C-alpha cells in the first residue's frame, strides 16, 4: 500500500504526543462531575458540606454558585445554570480538588435531593408527542414529496413494506472527552479533546462574554471522535467555569461511564420503508418514514430518510421525519448521521425487493440507477456506484453465489451486498503557507486531526503542489489562533482545509516560479476560500460505495460471525492511500459492529442508557473482523475541489450494516429488521438440521 504514514506516528506510538488531558499547568486542579440520579425534576437542595470537609477539595460548584453563562446557542451547554434536571446523568454539581482521587471521592458525597417528576423515556410508535419538525439534522427539509406515492403503491406489481429498528448507539472514542482550562489576565485557554477548536473558541467566547481573541482553544491530538466531539461538549464549559471560579487551572476528563449521557449519541430510529415496483424490479414508488427522538433540551433529528432522496430512480417518493421529545440525553452526530441508519433500512429493503422480484440484489440496484439526483433533478458531479458494485462483485467472488447460503457442518454461510452514499460537504477555510529560507515549508490552518491523518494529507497536498518531498512540509494545526479552519466532521475536513492549503500553496508556488527570493523571515501566502466555496455548484455531489459481506451463523446457538467484509468506494481522488484505506476500513468495522453487536438499552425505570462501559456496550474487537478489505475505483471529480477528492471519513460505515444483515438472510432465510443481529435475534428462527 503506497502513501504516507502519519507524520505524528512516532510521537503517538512512543507516547510523546500530548492529548488534552496530558496538560498539567502549574497548580492544576482536578474536577469531577456529579450526575443527576433522576431523569426529570428539580433540585431542591444540595449539601456539599461532607465534600468540602476534605481539605483537598477546593470547591463544589452547583447551580446556586456557578458562574453565570450567557445564553448558549446549544442549550446542552448551559451547565449548572438552573435547578432543572432534564435527563439522568446531567451534571448537577462539580467537585474540584487538588487530586483526582479527592475530586472523585468528593463527587460521591455531594448530597442532592430532587423533586422528581414522572419521566418519559420509552420510544413508542404511537407516542402522543410525535410531531413533524421543520428540518432534520444537516438542514434538510423534514419532508420531501415527489410524485404520487400512494398511486404508485396501489398500482405496484411488487410491494415491500417493512419496518426497521435501530437502538441508540454510542460513539465511544478511545480517548474520553477531556479538557484543561485556565484563565490569565481575563484570557481563557482551553485544551480540549475536540473535532474543531474554532467552534470551541466561538462557543466559550459567547458563553463567557469574551472577544474571540480572548479565547485560545487547542486540540493538538485527539483520540477519536466519530462526531461526538464535533460540537463543544459540557466538559470544556465545566472546566473553564471551574477554572474561573477557583482562579487556578482545572482539568476534567469525563469517566467513560458518563459519556453515554453527556456527549451525544446516535438517536434510536424506527423506519418504515415501502418500495412499490414493477415485477422487473424497477421502482415506481419509494417511501421512507422515520420516527426518532430527541431530548427536551434541544431538537436533534437524525436525518435517516435523506439518503433515499439521492439513491434510486423512482417516479414517486415520500420521505419524512417525525420526532418526539423525551426526558433523555440529547442525541447528536455519530459517524454519518442519517446515512448510517437510513441506508441500513433502505438497503435491507432493496434486498427484500430483489428477492421478491427474483433478481440478484446487484442487478436490482443497477436497474434502478438514476440519471440525475432523484429528488433535486440535478446532475451528479460524478456517480460511480455501478463501477463500485461491479468491481466489488469481481473481487468478492459474487458470481459464485447461489440463491441461498450453504451449510458447513453446523454452520450456515451466506453473503450480502449493500450500497453506500455520503454527501460531499465542503466548508470554507483559510490557510497560510510559508516558504522558509532553509527550503522547508510551513502549512498553517486550524484543522483538527482526530486520528484520521489530517496533518499528513495536508502535507501531501502542499508537497504535490510544490513538487517537493512530504518531509519538507511542516503542518501546524489544531489551534484556534491559526488561520480559520473548520470542524473535522461531515467528511469535509480534507476538502475544506485542503482547498485552502491547495490555493495558498499554489499562490506560493507561482511566486517562487516567478523567481521571488525567500527572505530570512520566510515568504508567506494566505488564502481564504470563502468566496470560492460560496459560489456553490449546480451539481449533486456525493461519494458512493458498495459493501459485500460473508457471514456464518451457528445453527445451534444463533451466533453470527463475520467472515469477510469487502468494500469498494468511489470517493474522488484518493490523496493519501495509506490513511484513506485506514479510514475506510475503520468505517466498515464500525458498520459491522453496529450490525452485530452495538446495543444501548434505555432503562425504563431510571431513564438512562444502561450499558456504560466497553465491557457491556459491545463494539467489535479484532476477533470480530478477521478479514476486512477496502478498495476504490479511480475517480477524480473536478466539480468538488481542486484536488478532485471527496470525503472518506464516513462512507465506509454507510451500508455495511445492511450488507451484513443481507448476508445473514442469505445464510439463514431469516430477515432481521431490528439491530443488532445476535444470538437472541436468530435463535430458533431458522430450521434445524
Amino acid at each position, binding site marked *: 500500500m503506497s502513501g504516507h504514514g502519519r507524520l505524528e506516528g512516532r510521537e503517538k506510538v512512543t507516547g510523546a504526543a500530548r492529548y488534552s488531558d496530558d496538560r498539567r499547568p502549574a497548580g492544576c486542579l482536578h474536577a469531577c462531575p456529579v450526575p443527576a440520579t433522576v431523569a426529570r425534576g428539580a433540585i431542591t437542595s444540595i449539601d456539599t458540606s461532607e465534600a468540602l470537609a476534605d481539605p483537598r477539595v477546593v470547591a463544589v460548584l452547583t447551580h446556586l454558585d456557578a458562574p453565570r453563562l450567557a445564553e448558549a446557542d446549544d442549550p446542552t451547554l448551559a451547565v449548572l445554570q438552573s435547578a432543572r434536571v432534564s435527563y439522568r446523568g446531567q451534571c448537577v454539581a462539580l467537585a474540584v480538588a487538588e487530586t483526582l482521587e479527592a475530586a472523585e471521592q468528593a463527587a460521591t458525597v455531594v448530597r442532592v435531593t430532587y423533586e422528581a417528576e414522572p419521566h418519559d423515556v420509552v420510544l413508542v410508535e404511537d407516542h402522543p408527542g410525535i410531531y413533524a419538525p421543520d428540518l432534520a439534522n444537516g438542514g434538510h427539509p423534514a419532508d420531501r414529496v415527489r410524485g404520487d406515492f400512494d398511486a404508485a403503491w396501489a398500482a405496484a406489481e411488487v410491494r415491500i413494506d417493512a419496518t426497521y429498528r435501530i437502538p441508540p448507539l454510542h460513539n465511544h472514542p478511545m480517548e474520553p472527552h477531556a479538557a484543561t482550562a485556565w484563565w490569565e489576565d481575563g484570557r481563557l485557554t482551553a485544551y480540549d479533546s475536540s473535532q474543531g477548536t474554532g467552534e470551541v473558541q466561538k462557543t466559550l467566547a459567547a458563553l463567557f462574554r469574551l472577544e474571540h481573541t480572548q479565547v485560545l482553544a487547542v486540540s493538538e491530538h485527539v483520540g477519536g471522535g466519530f462526531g461526538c466531539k464535533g460540537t463543544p461538549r459540557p466538559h470544556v464549559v465545566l472546566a473553564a467555569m471551574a477554572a474561573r471560579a477557583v482562579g487556578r487551572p482545572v482539568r476534567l476528563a469525563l469517566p467513560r461511564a458518563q459519556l453515554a449521557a453527556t456527549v451525544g449519541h446516535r438517536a434510536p430510529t424506527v423506519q418504515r420503508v415501502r418500495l412499490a415496483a414493477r415485477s422487473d424490479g424497477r421502482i415506481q414508488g419509494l417511501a421512507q418514514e422515520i420516527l426518532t427522538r430527541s431530548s427536551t433540551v434541544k431538537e436533534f433529528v437524525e436525518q435517516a430518510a435523506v439518503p433515499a432522496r439521492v439513491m434510486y430512480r423512482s417516479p414517486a417518493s415520500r420521505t419524512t421525519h417525525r420526532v418526539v421529545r423525551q426526558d433523555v440525553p440529547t442525541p447528536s452526530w455519530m459517524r454519518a448521521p442519517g446515512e448510517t441508519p437510513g441506508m441500513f433500512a433502505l438497503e435491507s429493503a432493496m434486498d427484500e425487493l430483489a428477492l421478491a422480484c427474483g433478481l440478484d440484489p446487484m442487478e436490482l440496484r443497477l436497474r434502478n440507477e438514476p440519471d440525475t439526483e432523484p429528488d433535486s433533478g440535478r446532475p451528479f458531479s460524478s456517480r460511480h456506484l455501478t463501477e463500485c458494485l461491479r468491481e466489488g462483485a469481481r473481487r468478492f467472488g459474487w458470481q459464485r453465489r447461489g440463491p441461498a447460503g450453504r451449510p458447513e457442518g453446523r454452520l450456515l454461510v451466506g453473503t450480502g451486498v449493500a450500497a453506500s452514499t455520503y454527501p460531499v460537504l465542503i466548508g470554507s477555510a483559510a490557510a497560510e503557507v510559508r516558504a522558509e529560507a532553509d527550503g522547508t515549508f510551513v502549512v498553517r490552518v486550524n484543522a483538527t486531526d482526530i486520528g484520521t491523518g489530517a496533518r499528513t494529507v495536508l502535507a501531501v497536498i502542499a508537497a504535490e503542489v510544490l513538487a517537493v518531498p512530504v518531509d519538507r512540509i511542516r503542518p501546524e494545526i489544531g489551534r484556534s489562533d491559526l488561520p480559520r479552519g473548520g470542524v473535522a466532521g461531515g467528511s469535509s475536513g480534507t476538502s475544506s482545509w485542503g482547498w485552502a492549503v491547495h490555493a495558498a500553496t499554489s499562490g506560493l508556488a507561482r511566486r517562487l516560479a516567478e523567481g521571488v527570493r525567500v527572505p530570512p523571515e520566510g515568504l508567506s501566502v494566505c488564502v481564504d476560500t470563502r468566496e470560492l466555496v460560496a459560489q456553490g455548484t449546480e451539481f449533486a455531489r456525493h461519494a458512493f460505495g458498495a459493501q459485500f459481506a460473508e457471514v456464518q451463523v451457528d445453527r445451534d446457538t444463533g*451466533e453470527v460471525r463475520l467472515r469477510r467484509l469487502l468494500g469498494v468506494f468511489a470517493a474522488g481522488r484518493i490523496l493519501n492511500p495509506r490513511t484513506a484505506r485506514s479510514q475506510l476500513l475503520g468505517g466498515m468495522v464500525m458498520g459491522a459492529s453496529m450490525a452485530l*453487536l452495538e446495543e444501548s438499552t434505555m432503562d425504563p425505570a431510571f431513564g438512562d442508557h444502561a450499558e456504560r462501559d466497553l*465491557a457491556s456496550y459491545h463494539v467489535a474487537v479484532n476477533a470480530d473482523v478477521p478479514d476486512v478489505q477496502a478498495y476504490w475505483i479511480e475517480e477524480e471529480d473536478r466539480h468538488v475541489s481542486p484536488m478532485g477528492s471527496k470525503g472518506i471519513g464516513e462512507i465506509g460505515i454507510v451500508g455495511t450494516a445492511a450488507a451484513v444483515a443481507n448476508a445473514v438472510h442469505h445464510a439463514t432465510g431469516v430477515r432481521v429488521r431490528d439491530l443488532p443481529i445476535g444470538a437472541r435475534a436468530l435463535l430458533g428462527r431458522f430450521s434445524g438440521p
Partner: protein
Amino acid sequence: MREFGYLRPTDPVEAVRLLVGSPEARYLAGGTNLVDLMKLGVERPRLLVDVSRLPLGDVTPTDGGGLRIGALVTNADLAADPRVRAAYPVLSQALLAGASGQLRNRATTAGNLLQRTRCLYFQDTAKPCNKRSPGTGCPAREGVHRDLAVLGASEQCIATHPSDLAVALAALDAVVELLGPDGPRTLPVTDLHRLPGDRPHEEHRLLPGELITAVAVPPPVPETLSAYRKVRDRASYAFALASAAGILAVRAGRVTHLALVLGGLAPKPWRARAAEQRLIGAPADEASFTAAVEAELAAARPLRDNAYKVPLARNLAVRLLCDLAAKGQAR
C-alpha cells in the same frame, strides 16, 4: 475511589491475620475485578491486603495423579500449561474463552472464582441492588435483564456468576483449598458459591478472612473427553450468554461417566445433576441428551427478556455432548 491502606504480607498466615476481624479489608491479587469495582465505588475497602507475592503461583502434580493449582497462577499461564492442555482440555478452553489476553495475563485462579457479577445494577451505585445494598430491591427483574439468570435466581436477585473457569472446575470436581484463622480446610468448587435466596449479598461459603490458597483437580476420569463451549455475541472479551462444560465417557454406545455444568445462566456454576443422573447408562445419542438437558432446564424461570437463554442452553449442551460422543467414537 476513596483512600485505602495497603499492606503486602509475605506469608499466607500473616495475610489471613491481617484480614480477620476487618470486614472492610479485601485481598488483592490480580485485581482485575476488585479494582474495577473500587473505581465504580461498589467496593470501598479501607485496607487492601496484597497477596500477589505470596508463594502460591505454581501448578504442581498431586500424589493421586491430579494437579494442584496455586491460587495466584494466572489464567494465561494455567491455560497454557501443557499438563492442563493435555489432561483437562475443558479447563484450558474455559480459560481461553474468558476476558481478553491482557486480562488473562493478570487475572488469577482464586480471583477468577471470586469475581463478582456483571449485573449492570450491581455496578451502578446510584441504583438499588440487594446484592450491593441488602434490602434496597432488585430493579433488574423489571429492567435490563437480558443477560441475567434463568436458573437458581430468587425474587431478591437474578445476577449471574460470570466466571468461565468456575464452570470448568465444577465439572472437574475440583476442590478449593482454604486457609483461615483456624487453619486449612477444603470445599468442593460446586459448594463454593451460594444461591441468592433472600440473602443475595452472601455469595460464597468462605468464612471471614479465609484465603483461597489453591484449587486441587483430581486426576482425569479414564476414557473421558472434555470440552468447554461459550456462546457470546462478541467473539472475544464478552461474558457468556450461556456456556457449558462437559466431561463424557461412552462405552458400547452408553454413557458411563458424565459431568455437565452450565454457565451464564445462574448465580453460580450450574451443575446439571438431574441431566447427569438421567444419562448415566443411557444411550449416548442426541435424543437422550436432549431429553436429559430439557429435564434439567425444566427448573428454568425466565423473565421478559432472557427467555432465549433456555433454548440456547439446551442447544448448546446437547451439541456439546453430541460432539464429545462423536469424538469418543472416532477415537
